[in-house]
């Protein structure tokens, strides 16, 4: 198990390293003068030259990349034009357009996205797996068909439709909830929750459909297995078979899929963040891409990539814990 763990962590680090190379290459793949792009459209020629100097664009590519890596691991110094600023590790660069360190910018947005993703994640697992189990329990009956139909509708409906409906019903018509507006957890935990409730549900309803189907199909698959027949033949009740044996078979695939979704969601909940006015990472990324703020784009992609890789590594380990046979393979 220890060897397995070490192999997975080494693999994750390698992927991050490879990602950093690819992402860093964006600077040079992007058309036009890198310094001008990084500096922004309002820069004077003198300022652009200064940026070129600070980014050390005169150095060979690998030296520049080395400084970038150094910044992440040990921090580096930047000149903001008038003064020299130290950027602590992990330093992801400096946004000349907003006059901010990328790390600070991301750190400000990270709790927002994390709040959204964690809450939605818990909900979508509960709703998705719950619906899946229910539809297996009621298989062959009308209620199963209704559930299947509902999950299909969930998958097919775009998040902005679900989101708008939720806002109209709960904020407008019933007026049970405030129009969502992000309140940091540290400021007011209760308001934080009330304001995030709708975005959580909007995201969870969309995602849970997938999980309901996955849970259902893996449970049905397990129910057809020989060992289920054994336990039936030994007088174990149908409920216990579903709970202990069939559901157990669905654990591993659900873990695998949720890790992917969880990681992706850090940079992928653009529609949800925009619709509910949540100032998270995904929205920031879209903004940065729009104005071609390259240092911010690179930093964000690195951070989002980090979460995807982290989630996958955790999933691999959980998967191995859930199914010990994986370690042997």
């Amino acid at each position, binding site marked *: 198990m220890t060897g397995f763990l070490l192999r997975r962590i080494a693999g994750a680090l390698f992927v991050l390293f490879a990602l950093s190379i690819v992402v860093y290459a964006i600077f040079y793949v992007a058309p036009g003068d890198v310094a001008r792009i990084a500096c922004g459209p309002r820069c004077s020629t003198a300022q652009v030259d200064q940026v070129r100097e600070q980014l050390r664009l005169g150095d060979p590519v690998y030296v520049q990349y080395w400084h970038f890596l150094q910044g992440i691991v040990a921090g580096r110094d930047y000149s903001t034009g008038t003064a020299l600023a130290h950027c602590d590790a992990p330093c992801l660069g400096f946004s000349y357009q907003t006059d901010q360190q990328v790390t600070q910018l991301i750190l400000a947005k990270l709790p927002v996205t994390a709040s959204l993703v964690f809450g939605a994640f818990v909900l979508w697992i509960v709703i998705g797996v719950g619906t899946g189990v229910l539809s297996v329990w009621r298989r062959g009956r009308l209620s199963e068909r209704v559930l299947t139909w509902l999950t299909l509708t969930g998958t097919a409906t775009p998040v902005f439709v679900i989101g708008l409906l939720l806002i109209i019903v709960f904020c407008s018509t019933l007026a049970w909830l405030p129009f969502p507006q992000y309140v940091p957890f540290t400021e007011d935990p209760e308001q934080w929750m009330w304001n995030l409730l709708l975005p959580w549900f909007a995201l969870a309803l969309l995602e849970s459909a997938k999980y309901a189907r996955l849970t259902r199909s893996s449970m049905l698959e397990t129910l057809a297995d020989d*060992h289920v*027949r*054994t336990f039936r033949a030994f007088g*174990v009740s149908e409920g216990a078979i579903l709970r202990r*044996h069939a559901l157990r078979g669905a654990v591993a695939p659900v873990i695998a899929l949720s890790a992917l979704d969880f990681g992706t969601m850090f940079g992928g909940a653009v529609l949800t963040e925009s619709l509910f006015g949540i100032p998270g990472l995904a929205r920031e990324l879209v903004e940065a891409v729009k104005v071609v703020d390259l240092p911010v784009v690179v930093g964000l992609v690195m951070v989002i990539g980090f979460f995807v890789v982290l989630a996958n590594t955790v999933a691999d380990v959980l998967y191995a814990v859930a199914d*010990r046979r994986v370690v042997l393979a």
Partner: protein
Amino acid sequence: MSLIEVTDLSVRFDEVRAVDGVSFTLDPGAALGVVGESGSGKSTVAYALLGLHRETGASVSGTVKVAGVDVLTADERELRGLRGGKAAMVFQDPLSSLDPYYAIGDQIAEVYRVHHRVSRRAARARAVEVLDRVGIPDAVRRSRSRPHEFSGGMRQRALIAMALACSPELLVADEPTTALDVTVQAQILDLLHELRAETGMGLLLVTHDVGVAAESVDDILVMRHGKVVERGPVGSVLASPREAYTQELLAAVPRIDASDTSDVRPGGAETAEPVLEARDLRKVYGKGKQVFPAVDGVSVSVRPGETLGVVGESGSGKTTLGRMLVGLLTPDGGSVTGTSDVQMVFQDPASALNPRRSIGESIADPLRARGEKDEERIRARVGELLVRVGLDPTLYDRYPHEFSGGQRQRVCIARALAPSPRLIVCDEPVSSLDVTTQAQVLSLLDELRRELGLALVFVAHDLAVVRQVSDRVAVMRRGRVVESGTVAEVYGAPKDPYTKQLLAAVPALDPSVAAERRSERKELAEAA
């Protein structure tokens, strides 16, 4: 009162009548063997005893009473009490019959707690107790293992332990040893024998192997096409069967103790040049610390018209050897001479044929591979080959699923014959076939050997089959040949202890011989 009372039982799956008016009884503590070929309905009867058809949508009629429970009319609660509590069932494939995610001890404890209101702890203790009883060494520790950490034999022991946990009055065993090696099979049958003597539980043993039944039961019930053919004490049914089908079935069973075969092998074979000669073959799997020599220095030679039997248990390297002889695997050491004229017939004829191509096309493959382009000639040659293996030459355009298992194996043999080889390597060619079909395919192979002067390498786990077809035999274990010689030498006067152990493990058709073998096995085990 009888332990089992089945009256006029019929089971239908949609349009198929799997069991058709079966009646029988079993006294408490008695053992009944239900014997039949595939499709005879023997397993369907066993499932009906525990009401296992309820969840499948099969329609069941008649009455089934087991340990005082009317299985077909009992409510859920009563039925669950019967299952595992009064009557327990052991299934064929021990790997898939246990939940891969839980420790074996926990699975047994779970079943125990269904029938007894005890704490988890007490149930766990019971699990260890029964695991110890069925001979799992270090049961406390091993009860925490998951099924994949157990060998096939140990898994079957664990399943028997689960059945034993609630001290049932009846044990239903559905092909309990079919997936196991012959020595392991003997251990499991001996265990069942001991447990019956000790607990006095009744046994219903479903098997396709008459020998397995002869080893284990008092009475035998022969089934065919869902009906009972014959029932009686095992000794008299096997010694003097009344029904024609039983006679046919018994005649088809290859015997390990038959007086030597009467047919005289072609003279001169002794002196002829070998068709195939392999020297010091080696094949290693894995790398680093986990290197595992599958075949470790094996030399064999086969002369024209001769059959070399290669016999061994799973993991002995016999299949790897066979594949190296044909050139499907490249040896890591040693040499093979003569491989250009060698063909192969595989174990499972269903997967050895492409289901999307007609059998004629499959047989024509080797001809086309050799550059034959004339469609007329190909059709004619395939027709000849089909006749040669006893099939209708007009079946060229039929597809594999339209054929039975035995016919499919004939098609595979025809394909192997197509390039006119001098030697055919047969890897377990009959192990997936019913015993009567098996006999037909074996006699076809023998006929081909005699008439075409073909040499055969016959790889199999079944000692009786190998004895029946071979001139010379090589016994393999852990990648090496432990003993080789003529059939008379190896079977008549085995020298190697492993060969002796193997031969003692083969189920005997005669119950009195079976008892003898059982004590022989005990001696061998104690000596070891």
